[in-house]
């Protein structure tokens, strides 16, 4: 730190100071205030608000959000990995890899309002797929798939989860060197044996890290859930309720406490993800 104040580093200081001030004012300060208020409900130190944030309807909100995020992360993650492996193994159409790469970069950012609308037009009550399947005797309603229900949300979230997983997994999958497979084959290992002892152990950290990222990604998704079912018992929608409802005394602390739990959950997930990523790089970077 001492070197920061030496003459040749004064320039760095001039450039870093506005950046640090900016981040401090607009990100760190509001966050610290929320955490402080969550820990001091009604003005004195206590865990009262933090406990209430995990009870009753808010407890349901956390359970639903975690279930939704975990389900979409596991399904989206699995499909994303399979997609990456398929693309790597198919050498033939040369445009395939680059097209899917670009498409994923686009689709992983296409959450939000338009996506919700697209699925209302597809699997909503008047959706085209709902009607098409009805004609051949399959009732999506009866199967519990409507864009407002749990599985409907999973189907919608997969639209940005699969491409995100593909983007995160592709470097690890490409890093799986062909020479390893050849070496295993020369030593007499079957493809199954190769995957069990080489492929899967090397890809596992990347896969788990990617799924954690998907978990975080869908936990904090707001627009899609709001447009499809604003009254749903999901954490982001409950935050909205607390923020916009006529705030009764004490409710404010409740909102802060929920956010404190959310930040704790995201921070833990992302720290584990970073550790897993570091492990992945050990093998697949070259």
């Amino acid at each position, binding site marked *: 730190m001492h070197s920061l104040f030496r003459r040749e*580093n004064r320039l*760095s200081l001039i*450039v*870093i100071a506005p950046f640090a001030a*900016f*981040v401090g004012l*607009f*990100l760190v*300060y*509001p*966050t610290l*205030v*929320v955490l402080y*208020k969550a820990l001091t409900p009604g003005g004195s130190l206590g865990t009262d608000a933090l406990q209430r944030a995990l009870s009753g309807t808010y407890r349901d909100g956390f359970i639903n959000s975690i279930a939704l995020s975990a389900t979409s992360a596991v399904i989206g993650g699995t*499909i994303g990995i399979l997609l990456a492996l*398929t693309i790597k*193994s198919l050498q033939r159409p040369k445009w395939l890899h*680059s097209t899917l*790469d*670009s498409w994923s*970069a*686009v689709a*992983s*950012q*296409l959450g*939000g*309002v*338009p996506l919700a*609308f*697209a699925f209302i*037009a*597809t699997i909503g009550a*008047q*959706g*085209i*797929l709902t*009607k098409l399947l009805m004609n051949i005797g399959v009732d999506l309603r009866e199967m519990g798939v409507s864009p407002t229900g749990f599985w409907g949300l999973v189907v919608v979230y*997969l*639209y940005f989860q699969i491409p*995100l997983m593909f*983007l*995160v997994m592709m470097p690890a999958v490409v890093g799986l060197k062909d*020479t390893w497979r050849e070496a295993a*084959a*020369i030593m007499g290992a079957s493809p199954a044996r190769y995957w069990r002892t080489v492929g899967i152990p090397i890809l596992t950290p990347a896969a788990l890290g990617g799924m954690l*990222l998907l978990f*975080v990604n869908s936990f*904090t998704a*707001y*627009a899609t859930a*709001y*447009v499809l079912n604003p009254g749903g018992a999901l954490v982001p929608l409950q*935050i*909205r309720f607390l*923020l916009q409802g006529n705030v009764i005394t004490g409710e*404010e602390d409740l909102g*802060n406490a929920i*956010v404190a739990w959310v*930040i704790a959950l*995201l921070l833990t997930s992302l720290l584990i993800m970073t550790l897993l990523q570091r492990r992945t790089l050990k093998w697949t970077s070259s």
Partner: protein
Amino acid sequence: MSTEAVAVLAPGQADSVPATPVRRSGRARVTSAIKWAFLILVALYFVVPMLAMARFAFQNVPTALLTPDKLFTGWSPSGLWTALTDPQILAAGRTSLGLVVFAIVLNLVLLVPLSIVTEVRSPQFRPYLTAFTLLPWVIPPIALVVGVAATFRATAPWFLASVFSLVPFYALWAMPFTYRALDAGLQAINARTLYEAARSMGASLGTIIFRVLLPNMRASMVAAAGLTAAMVLGEFAFASLLLKATLPTEMVNYQRGDPRGGLALALFVMVLTALSLGLVVRTLRRRGLNVQTTGL
């Protein structure tokens, strides 16, 4: 290359090679068929909602009355036209464009000098800046909005009164990929070597920045700008909870009164976003810059 290696290591099996491809091609054909079936299924999942949305937006035939013979009747872009000429949508569109421009400018003003100085003068700070890029994932809009309500709403209500109070926060969430893009650009041109070379020839710091480094960072800046634009045009949670009229929030209001036009508008914005992101990917690839658009 690989078959050569096998042949060298196991010369005794060389004579069995002609038989193997014949047997394997049958199995390979099956696996290849499975792979393509999987790819087609995934492609359908991604294409069908877009087509359904386009049909709903541009074909004025209710789904209940849609029969195969009516597939090509009633198509018209009038819904989109009505939506695009709606005064509130126009105003919101202008607002969002302003937000895009201001967020890009603010981000570049803060991060271009920072990334240059960090790279050429204090590379020891690079790991800290890179770690910082995870912050917006930890504190997403839905969490930060509560903090902003708890702080600025009480102490500086005048600040939140303007719709452009969103700019610093949008710049904040755009920082991870902006910094990554700029840093990748500097790495790709070997900025430190260029800096030292220019320095030793007597160039001033201003000359180095404006005539050597900045012209070489254009691709990075275009990529960062495109990603920021896509982010701002899609951000809903923060604007909606602070009751600001941006394009995404107005789109939801508009859709309640005119479902068809609302969907046409959403599709239009989605295509714009996709084009902007497509430009980003193309720019990055042409320059051979290794930047994750996820900002990680």
